[in-house]
């Protein structure tokens, strides 16, 4: 399997007053093509910070992030933006859909991002058709014109997943994607993630507290106090959450 994402000695510290808070203390990890990896740890372990650093939303204080053979931390912010758009998808706990846009528009937004107006107008039909197909494939074919406020939590998360998929990413970084859903809906979302992974071979790095979620992944990365405790496929009861 090819390595898609690699982190090398990632450090992140914040300055609060006169004190430096070291959130990440030299993280080494990787995600392989088509792999589903769980990122676990107690609150404050640095899971979300690591996810943001890996997603190039937050620059690390030290260390490097690689996407395939590109050292993403060494390139310009403009190239980082392009790389993020082309290779990475995000799914958040609170969906983070844009309230003013319909489900279809939220999904299309990902494809609008880096296109000029003439380019978008030329490809408008294809972009729209792809967004419609994506929403239909996740069971929202009849909710295209609904705004986020008119959708249930599960439906919103599906739209968020469709939005992450629209630019054909190689890895999706999911920050507690089921954390805000009831168990039945959470199960549906997990099934969808595994289905996408199986059908499209897209890798997932999932931040989770849920033993049930972690136990189903290919690999678990356990964080504690900004350090990786271990990489393993642990039994559910062994995972300290």
């Amino acid at each position, binding site marked *: 399997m090819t390595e898609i994402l690699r982190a090398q000695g990632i450090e992140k510290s914040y300055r609060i007053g006169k004190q430096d808070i070291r959130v990440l203390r030299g993280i080494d990890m990787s995600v392989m093509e088509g792999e589903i990896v769980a990122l676990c740890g107690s609150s404050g372990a640095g899971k979300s910070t690591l996810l943001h650093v890996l997603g190039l939303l*937050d620059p690390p204080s030290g260390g490097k992030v690689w996407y395939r053979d590109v050292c993403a931390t060494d390139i310009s912010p403009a190239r980082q933006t*392009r790389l993020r758009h082309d290779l990475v998808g995000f799914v958040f706990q609170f969906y*983070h859909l*844009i309230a003013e846009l319909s489900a279809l528009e939220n999904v299309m*937004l*990902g494809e609008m*991002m*880096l*296109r000029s107006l003439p380019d978008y107008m030329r490809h408008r039909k294809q972009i729209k058709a792809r967004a419609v197909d994506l929403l239909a494939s996740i069971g929202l074919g009849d909710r295209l014109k609904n705004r986020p406020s008119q959708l249930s939590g599960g439906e919103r998360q599906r739209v968020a997943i469709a939005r992450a998929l629209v630019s054909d990413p190689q890895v999706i970084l999911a920050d507690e994607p089921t954390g805000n859903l009831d168990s039945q809906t959470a199960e549906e979302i997990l099934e969808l993630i595994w289905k996408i992974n199986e059908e499209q071979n897209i890798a997932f790095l999932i931040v989770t507290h849920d033993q049930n979620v972690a136990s189903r992944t290919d690999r678990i990365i356990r964080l504690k106090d900004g350090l990786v405790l271990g990489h393993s496929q642990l039994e559910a009861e062994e995972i300290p959450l």
Partner: protein
Amino acid sequence: MYVYYLALKYLLSRPINLLSILGVTLAVWALIVIVSIFSGFIVKMEKHIQGTTSDLSFIHIGSSPRSDLTLFQKLLEADPEVQAFAPRLVWHGMLDHAGKNELDLRRLQRGPERDFVQVIGIDPKQEQKVSRLRAWLAAVEDASLRPVNPAKPFETGSDDEIPGALLGLARARDLGLPRGSSLTLVSGHQVRNEDVTRIQKRFRLSGCWSSGFYHFDENTMLVPLSVMRDIFGEGRPAWQQAQLFNEIAIQLVEGADLNQAKKRLQESFDKLSQKKFIWGGIFWTWRDRNRNFLQNVEHQKFLMRLMLFVLVIVVGFLIFATLSMMVVEKIRDIGILSALGGTRTGVLVIFAFSGLAIAIIGSSLGVLSAVWTCAHLNDFNVWLKDSFDIHLFRTSVYGLKEVPHQIEWLWVGIVCTVTLGLSSLSAIIPGFRAARMDPVKALRHEI
């Protein structure tokens, strides 16, 4: 591409943005409509003033009329740009329309304006060459107030010896005077160090005129020049009496430069006065004569523009506040956009474009509504008066039939440019704040 799409979505989905658009619309509307009314008023007034004042006037400096008209005739006839001229004898006095000899206390209490009058002694034949006297007489719609014979407007049709006088229609209507009414002019004049000589002269109202310039119509009485010469020439030899005047109205040829002509005539007159040791006098253009009034209106127009521009600044603050609120409301969206591949410039453009769109839509609506308002200004004025007893413009005060207006397109351009500039500036500041926002903090933001 997404920036414009998202900016318009944000713009249209938030009612407070519509309030900003309304603010811009109102400011632009007010700036255009009010200044158009002022401009129209100035143009109308200038036209009216020009109609009641000849191109140039010679004004005698001295307390009693001068008697060297022949000298001036030569001077003026020698000038290539003087087309016609007419001597006048202008005086001031109190007008008693009841035929009484004395002013009673009740009338004084009512206010001096009612009785004050500027009396202009004219020769109708010559006067028609320098003013629009015949047109003024014809402008009186009520035939019973028009002079019987417009060619000889001072003819009273009465057998008595009382000379005729013309009053402005506004004054005659104000006093409720029919043609043939008795009018008494009460005044006085002093020759050098002698005692003040009382003037008391009866006239009969031979008709009215309407120049369109209310101020002139309300305060002026036209009487025969010969009668004024009789009054002021008492005790003087007949040849002197026949030359009395204290003002000359001068009409220039079409296209003549007023200021050049004024300068030339003044220089000729100054040379002549030094040579012949005659009394001084000055030449004035019609603008010089009404300088205070015209400057006052222009000054008011300037002040109004200044005050209304404050409105645009307030609108700028409104847009700033609205977009700042939008940045706060949309913090999480800024994080999402970054996660989806949005750039800082893109985020800046979303907010700057929102501000620009507010300004463009507001300005366009403002210009359209202002043009529409100007086209229906009179209906609007009547509607305001009937519905709320508010007078947008009191036409009666200025003797105008309708609300004057003139859209100055250069001004419209300035208003739109300043509004767009200020609105964009107001939008860029919150836009920069949004663009500088840390996407991670934005994503963690909870509303």
